[in-house]
């Protein structure tokens, strides 16, 4: 792989100098084109495969989420492929992402929620039991609850406190010494919290959360695309 770097055009070698783990931590806030670039950079990065595995799964989760409305067929194929590759991932953070992929799969076929839903919840609960207080797992659990119908124990009312908890945990989390360890979560949790607040008709609180997101990340795509239109729609 190092031989390949030497053979690359100078302009690409320049691109390699950017901090890849740092960019991976900002993954969910990047435009889809940049996410795809990161996917390629990660594939050719000489880091050990065990360090890269989590980020490959995270990339697949993010891309599948984005494609789920634009290109459901490609999204479904990516979900299936990623589940096959990562379904037996042992670390709790990866298991939580596998649960996220199962959640996307349920979205393609809601009836499958009867069998896949408890499995996804089981993976998330297990991940939380192994890593209590982990902000990313807490956020993924909250997202799953948000998308679960209220009659089977989900909905915005139960998801909202968990979103707030994810934000608190992300604020308190120290940056890991190993840059390859997962370290995303604060801005993402705030974005989802804002969305849940809008859904719960807590519009002033949602506006405050949106302002907080824009202070940290002025061009946040998730809030711009997903939260603001809903907030403005309900505010009218």
């Amino acid at each position, binding site marked *: 792989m190092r031989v390949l770097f030497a*053979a690359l055009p100078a302009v690409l070698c320049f*691109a390699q100098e950017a901090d890849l783990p740092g960019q991976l931590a900002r993954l969910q806030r990047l435009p889809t084109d940049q996410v795809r670039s990161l996917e390629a950079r990660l594939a050719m990065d000489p880091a050990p495969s065990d360090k890269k595995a989590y980020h490959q799964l995270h990339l697949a989760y993010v891309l599948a989420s984005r494609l789920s409305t634009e290109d459901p067929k490609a999204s479904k*194929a990516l979900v299936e492929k990623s589940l096959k590759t990562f379904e037996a991932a042992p670390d709790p953070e990866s298991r939580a992402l596998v649960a996220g992929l199962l959640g996307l799969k349920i979205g393609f076929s809601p009836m499958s929620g*009867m069998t896949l839903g408890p499995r996804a919840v089981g993976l998330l609960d297990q991940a939380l039991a192994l890593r209590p207080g982990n902000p990313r797992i807490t956020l993924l659990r909250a997202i799953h609850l948000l998308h679960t119908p209220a009659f089977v124990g989900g909905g915005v009312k139960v998801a909202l406190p968990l979103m707030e908890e994810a934000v608190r945990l992300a604020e308190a989390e120290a940056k890991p010494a190993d840059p390859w360890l997962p370290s995303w979560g604060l801005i993402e949790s705030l974005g989802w919290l804002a969305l849940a607040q809008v859904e719960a008709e807590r519009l002033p609180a949602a506006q405050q959360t949106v302002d907080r997101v824009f202070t940290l990340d002025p061009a946040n795509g998730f809030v711009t695309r997903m939260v603001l239109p809903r907030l403005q729609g309900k505010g009218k």
Partner: protein
Amino acid sequence: MLAVLLQAALELSGVILGPGGKPLPGAQVEAAGRQTQADGRGAFTLTLEGSGPVEVRISAPGMEAQARLGRPGEALLVLLSPAVQGAMVEVVEGSGYSSQEGSTSTLSRLEIYTTPGAAADVMQAAKGLPGVSNASEGAELYVRGGKPEEVGIWLNGGRLARPFHHPNTQGGIFSAVDTALVTRVDFVPGAFSARYGDALSAVLDISTDQANPVASNTLLVTIPTQGFAAERPVGEGLLRASVRRSDTVLLDKWYGLAQTFEESPLSHDAQVNWQQPLGTGRLIATGLYSQDHLATDVTIANLKDSYHNRSETRFGGLQWAGTVFGQAGLTLAASEGQSHITWTFNQWGIDQQERSRSARAELTLPLGDRLTLEGGGDLDRTHVDPQGQVPFNLANWNPAAAARNFAYGFDATRTGTYLTARLLLNPSWGLSLGGRQDHYGLEQETTRDLRATLSWLIREGMTFRLAGGTFHQAPLLTQVDPHAGNPELKILRATHALASLDAAWKGPVAWNLRMEVYRKDYDHLVVQDPVLRFVSSGRGYAQGADLLVKASTSGWRGWIGYGYLDTQRKEDLQTTLGPAPTSVPHNLTAVSSHTLAPGWELAGTFRYASGAPVTPVLGATPDPGGGWDPVQGPQYSDQLPVYHRVDVRLTHLFSRWGGNWVVFGEVMNLLDRHNAASYSYTPDYTVRRVNESYFSRRILVAGLSLGW
């Protein structure tokens, strides 16, 4: 110098990578009406007329194309992934049904659980597929004119010989495999892979391998069945276990069946699975135990007496599946099964112990993107020890009639090797070519089979398949018994040919359609012989068409499976080619499931089958030893009345008190149809009576499942 900088400002450059981050030479790059190809290092450069952003399309054969936004002067780094499966033909053997999402399937776990009348049982659910007969209420599978013993059943790589509860009553009422632990089911009703030996008609391959380990508990309480299943990750391993008990005593009391049962059907089963990462793969240990008994007053032919049945099955299997040499898949499996079946009826009865061991080694070797080889070997060794006697002519149960006596144990062995090549000819065409050789020790015969399937992806979502081959299976152990049968019998042979069309449409209403026509020719079927007991002079054929239509919208899903069958066999007492017990020309299953409100499902199933053939009794003659012997008409020239049944189920799913609840109420046989299972007679055969099937009256069952 300035010219060089300006040139760079108009150049779009980048690198295209394929799987594993390796350069992808030859990848096509198009932008602003211009195009180029990536060089040997995967790099490309494209000169544009302007310096603004442009949409760039990157593609390569067999890869998913990507559209990206490119800006001259900035490098583009692109990783292409292999094309979505489905845009490329799937190279498979035969034309089967799988529980995997995306297949033309009516065997998903959800459907097994929620189809009314299927009793959440894998094999009862498989009976709804076209080509499988509805004529009996048992869980045994009569596939395309074949007998149940022609279907090979595998559990986690091990051959499962007797997976039924109450095996001698109307074809085994339920399977002994608990659906709660089942993760995948593959059912292939014809032209199946060369990896499966000693099966003449179809294969049912069940897996309990669970890839997403979680801690969970499931409690099942219904009127006839209670069960508990649990899953516990232990270290890197996963323990899954279930226990079930089924007792129909309440149903029998409520519905007036109690007077016929001295002991209501009672069954227990337990299943344990242990999964553990080991080396480059995963070890799966499977244990299964099932036990059942009943005692009832019945009339068989003209003899009324008490029938007692007791059976016990043990199965243990070990399977390791993993990778070797980087990319080759290796599966090693070994299993042992023991069964003990006892039944008595008047002076007749059998006490049979059977012990079978099997082992398999299989290597899957991908050779590039287009060719995969799968090959291996398997062996079975069965020891059977039957004791007792049955009527020589199974239509005459007169205690004075001639008997076939079983008194000695014997062994039967089989060793086989097989190889299958799956070749992707191009994205639309695929060919699977396989062969296997088996040596049967008791019969001292070696058989060879050639099997092939040609697949053509007509367009996305529509596949046409042509498949065929030869299939061998040993005769029943009772027929090759060296002391009570004929060990010189030849190995049974079937030749399959089929053509199928699968089509799927997505939209507000999602549709799946499968049409299949088939022909199956049998040789060396076993015919009764007054001197040699059995001879291999039989033959037969089965031909027909199967149709499956499946549709779903956001609030409704349903499917219809219809099979037309024309079959004749020269077998058993049928000494010329003629109708067989499996000659049931029309079979229909229709299922409709509606979401009434979130969490509320109303579903109904309608089953229809032509009446099963029976041999008429024209009269009777007194037997010198006492009693009456029947005078039979032409074999299977009469038939039972048409079978049909409607089952309706209301299911409520909700989450409360920390658990996921499924509560259901089901009316089985809503129309109170008194379906016939067989005919019986008065002692002198002057009056014929109908023996009704078990579910031959309207029955209300209810229950709940709680998962936490």
